[in-house]
C-alpha cells in the first residue's frame, strides 16, 4: 500500500495492517478537512505532492518511529480534491501498550507536517482560492482576496 492515495482512506484497513495478537494498544490519528481557516469559510481543498519524495519521506518517518518505539505504523495521506469532513491523513500505530502507541502516533503526524512535500490549495465560500502556508497564514496575492492576511498568533518568521 502506498503512502499517498487518491481514493478515500480506509481507516480500518490501516488498523488491520498494524494489529497483531501481541499488540494490545492501538492509537489512531485522523486529520479531517475543516470548514474554516483563519476566519474564512472553506468549501473544499486539493492536495498535491512531490510524489516520489513524499513516498520516500513517509517511508523514512515510519521507519524512524518503528525503530524508536516497539510499534508498527501505517500511514496514508490523500491527494486530489477533498470535501469538508473527508479524511486527509490517517495514522494507525499498534504497540504492546498504549504509551508507545500514543507517542509514536504523535511523532509521525508532527514529522509528516514538518517534512513531507505536500501542498494544500483551499477554495473559499467567496469563490477565491489560495495555497496554504502554515507559517504565514493564507497568502498568495494572486489567489487570495487581494490582501495578505497576517499570522493571527504573530509567530510568522
Amino acid at each position, binding site marked *: 500500500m502506498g503512502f499517498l492515495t487518491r481514493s478515500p482512506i480506509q481507516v480500518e484497513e490501516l488498523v488491520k495492517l498494524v494489529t497483531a495478537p501481541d499488540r494490545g494498544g492501538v492509537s489512531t490519528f485522523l486529520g479531517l478537512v475543516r470548514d474554516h481557516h483563519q476566519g474564512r469559510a472553506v468549501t473544499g481543498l486539493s492536495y498535491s505532492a512531490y510524489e516520489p*519524495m513524499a513516498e520516500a519521506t513517509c517511508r523514512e518517518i515510519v521507519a524512524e518511529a518503528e525503530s524508536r518505539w516497539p510499534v508498527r505504523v501505517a500511514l496514508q495521506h490523500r491527494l486530489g480534491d477533498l470535501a469538508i469532513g473527508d479524511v486527509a491523513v490517517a495514522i494507525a500505530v499498534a504497540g504492546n501498550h498504549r504509551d508507545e502507541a500514543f507517542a509514536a502516533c504523535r511523532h509521525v503526524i508532527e514529522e509528516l507536517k514538518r517534512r513531507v512535500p505536500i501542498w494544500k490549495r483551499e477554495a473559499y465560500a467567496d469563490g477565491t482560492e489560495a495555497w496554504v502556508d502554515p507559517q504565514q497564514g493564507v497568502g498568495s496575492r494572486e489567489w487570495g482576496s487581494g490582501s495578505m492576511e497576517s499570522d493571527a498568533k504573530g509567530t510568522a518568521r
Partner: protein
Amino acid sequence: MATRTVAPLTIRVRLFARYAELLGRDDLTLPAEGLNTAGDVLARIRSLPGGWEIGEYTLMAINLRQASLDAPVAPGDEVALLPPLAGG
C-alpha cells in the same frame, strides 16, 4: 557503430504548487554549466519571468532529499523547489 551512454550535462528542476504557477511550468531542464549548488539553481530560477516572487531561502531538495542551499549539485541531478509544506 557502437553507441555509448553519455551522462546528461543538464539539471532537471521541478516546481510545485504556487511556484509552478508563478513560473507557468513545473518541469525545466537547465544546462548544468555554472550551477554548482542548490542555491545556484534557485538563483537561476528566480531570474526567470515570474521567479522573483520565490523566496531567497526557499526549501529545496536534491534527488528526493531535502538539501541546504550550499549543497552541491551535479549533472543528472533532479533539483526541486519546495513551497511551504502544508500536508496533514
